[in-house]
């Protein structure tokens, strides 16, 4: 179906039919959500209409929530009929912070062909409202900034029943700010306690724990405490016990854990979580407990912990294998445990590998540290600097055109006389990556000054034709 034709989803209740969702093309021709279907058909002839299927929608949303649970956060739940709520605390550092986390989620969903909007805020209520009402695709509300962010929002974002909203509108209340300024008692008398509760949840005055989504195939172990615990050593002890139970359960099913979550229920009905990811499926209790205990210091036990839950969110088949005894062969050390430990601390781990490009800054590619070892090495045997500047820096140069190395150059305010030089090594632009580089040429020289300091400099252009470059000189690297 062509993308420019309007498409709407029709809901029905009795004989009443109305639009429950409309795409951008439909919005352009004036179709709105809530409009009766007959009116829409009058506006657009031969309108494409699909009957709504709430059951299938809910199932699809749950699948999406499960995907988010595996990828982003330990505590994920379905929020109303059209959203997913997740507790990002303790999980955002693995994606490089809150901003990167939510833009990553939106981009990930776009890759699946879905448009999404995301918000991060202190409370569930605020994030729910902001995600639906801000024009921006992603928004991060700083800690403590909820009041300022939601005060001007309309009241229909409060997750209240439609007739309550209608009743409040009749009273002339339009925004959250106006509603929160009203006295509570008359409101409660007329609309019940729900209005006050939603407002308190929005501003974080009362807690609203997220009941995480669980499916039968998730392996989960938990432990309740008669007396709340709080000391790190005690937590570590019970975490080790739980890991032992979890690995035993996994062994029954022949699985190894790829991602596990430790959810901690405190006595004041709040939750905290620690997530540990692994590069390969693992069922070794020592390794798992080391990963989880490594991050116990991030847990704030508050007044005490009453329950600890350990879930293997992502588990993959793990076969028992016989290891060849190495009498003669060199022992190959598996470094994945180390990579797991460092990776879970939020460090960026990678290996370098050659990329097929002559342009220096493109000739190196980062790959996952556990990627297969290909044995590939750089084919070029010309001298290369051990430090490459992030951006080539412009230098003042005295040099003969077209192919002589510089005689004198000034870099960062210091003038250097060149005593020895090698070059030019000509590198052509790659027109297949950027059309602008069709003609581009760089002539690289190795230059050495009187002190013996060696630099990698280049001239943009071939020294004859200005089409190939500006003939300015740049320094690109420092030799050891």
């Amino acid at each position, binding site marked *: 179906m062509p993308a420019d034709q309007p498409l709407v989803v029709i809901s029905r209740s009795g004989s009443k039919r109305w639009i429950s969702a409309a795409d951008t093309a439909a919005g352009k021709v004036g179709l709105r959500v809530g409009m009766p279907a007959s009116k829409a058909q009058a506006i657009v002839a031969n309108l494409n209409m699909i009957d709504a299927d709430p059951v299938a929608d809910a199932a699809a949303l749950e699948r999406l929530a499960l995907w988010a649970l595996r990828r982003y956060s330990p505590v994920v739940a379905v929020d109303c009929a059209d959203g997913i709520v997740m507790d990002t605390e303790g999980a955002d550092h693995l994606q490089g912070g809150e901003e990167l986390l939510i833009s990553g989620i939106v981009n990930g969903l776009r890759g699946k062909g879905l448009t999404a909007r995301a918000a991060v805020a202190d409370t569930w209520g605020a994030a729910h409202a902001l995600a639906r009402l801000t024009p921006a695709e992603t928004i991060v509300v700083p800690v403590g900034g909820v009041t300022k962010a939601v005060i001007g929002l309309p009241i229909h974002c409060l997750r209240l029943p439609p007739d309550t909203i209608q009743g409040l509108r009749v009273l002339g209340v339009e925004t959250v700010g106006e509603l929160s300024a009203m006295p509570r008692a008359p409101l409660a008398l007329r609309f019940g306690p729900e209005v006050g509760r939603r407002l308190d949840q929005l501003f974080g005055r009362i807690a609203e724990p997220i009941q995480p989504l669980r499916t039968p195939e998730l392996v989960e172990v938990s432990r309740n405490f008669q007396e709340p615990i709080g000391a790190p050593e005690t937590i570590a002890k019970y975490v080790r016990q739980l890991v032992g139970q979890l690995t035993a359960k996994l062994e029954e099913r022949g699985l190894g854990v790829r991602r596990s979550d430790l959810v901690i229920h405190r006595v004041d009905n709040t939750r905290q979580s620690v997530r540990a990811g692994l590069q390969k499926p693992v069922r070794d209790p020592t390794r798992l407990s080391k990963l989880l205990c490594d991050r116990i210091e991030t847990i704030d036990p508050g007044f005490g912990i009453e329950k600890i839950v350990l879930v293997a969110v992502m588990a993959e088949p793990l076969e028992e294998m016989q290891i060849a005894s190495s009498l003669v062969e060199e022992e190959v050390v598996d470094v994945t445990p180390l990579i797991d430990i*460092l990776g879970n601390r939020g460090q960026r781990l990678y290996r370098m590998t050659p990329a097929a490009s002559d342009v220096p800054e493109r000739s190196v590619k980062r790959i996952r540290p556990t990627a297969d070892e290909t044995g590939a090495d750089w084919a070029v045997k010309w001298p290369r600097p051990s430090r490459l500047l992030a951006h080539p820096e412009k230098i003042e140069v005295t040099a003969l055109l077209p192919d002589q190395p510089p005689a004198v150059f000034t870099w960062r305010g210091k003038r250097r006389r060149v005593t020895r030089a090698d070059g030019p090594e000509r590198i052509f632009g790659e027109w297949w990556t950027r059309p602008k580089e069709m003609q581009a040429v760089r002539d690289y020289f190795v230059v050495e000054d009187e002190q013996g300091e060696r630099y990698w400099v280049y001239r943009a252009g071939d020294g004859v034709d200005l089409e190939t470059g500006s003939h300015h000189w740049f320094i690109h690297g420092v030799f050891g």
Partner: protein
Amino acid sequence: MSRVHHPRVIEELRDRIAHLEGGASKKAVVLPFGVGEIDERLPGGGLAYGALHEVAGGGVGTVDGAAAALFTAGIAARSRGKILWCVTRPDLFFPAISQAGLHPDRVIFCEADKEEDVLASMEEGLSFGGLGAVVGELVRLPMTVSRRLQLAAEKTGTMALVVRRWRRQTEASDYGNPTASMTRWRISVLPSEPLPVAGVGRARWLAELMRVKAGECAEFEIGACDAKGRVCLLPVSADGSNASSWRGSRAS
């Protein structure tokens, strides 16, 4: 008569001190440079595994640490096993490191935002065991921290290499402060080896062994790492009489 006795007495004392220092240091394995003049200055005949070694650049090298990184890469290349390279500034150009004999498959980079994280990663890598060497690029290395690294290295016998590089050249005076490292090197660039034709020859470094535990300081003029990570003695010679010796070694 006393002259004959002295070495034996000293040997005995050394053995007893080594015994006191703990079991790990007894099986002190070393990584020789393969250059007699350098190795004889180092206790045990080479860079000790299970110890901390510091390398810094001289002059402009204090900031960019280009020569120091290459020297370190040469040492790491001659060790066996994987290398963990912890950095905060990812400006290492790997083709050059690979030319010093360190294959890209062997090096795992660990990039952190803070220097403290680099130290923590290094310590974790050292206590993991099974790595060939752990390299860290650091600005500051206080005594306590260096002792932690040294102890972690001793426990597993992994070599710890610290490349010191500063933000400004004036800050490099920090390199005089004591640390628990086994050896301390300063690698400064020298004019390259002269060629009979125009061009830049093999890079030469002035390697200053500024501090070595149970040894004496020394200076060497060396040729930069070759494709196997080896260095060689390459002093300046007006007539180029000794140039042939290393040429032969490089060709082999």
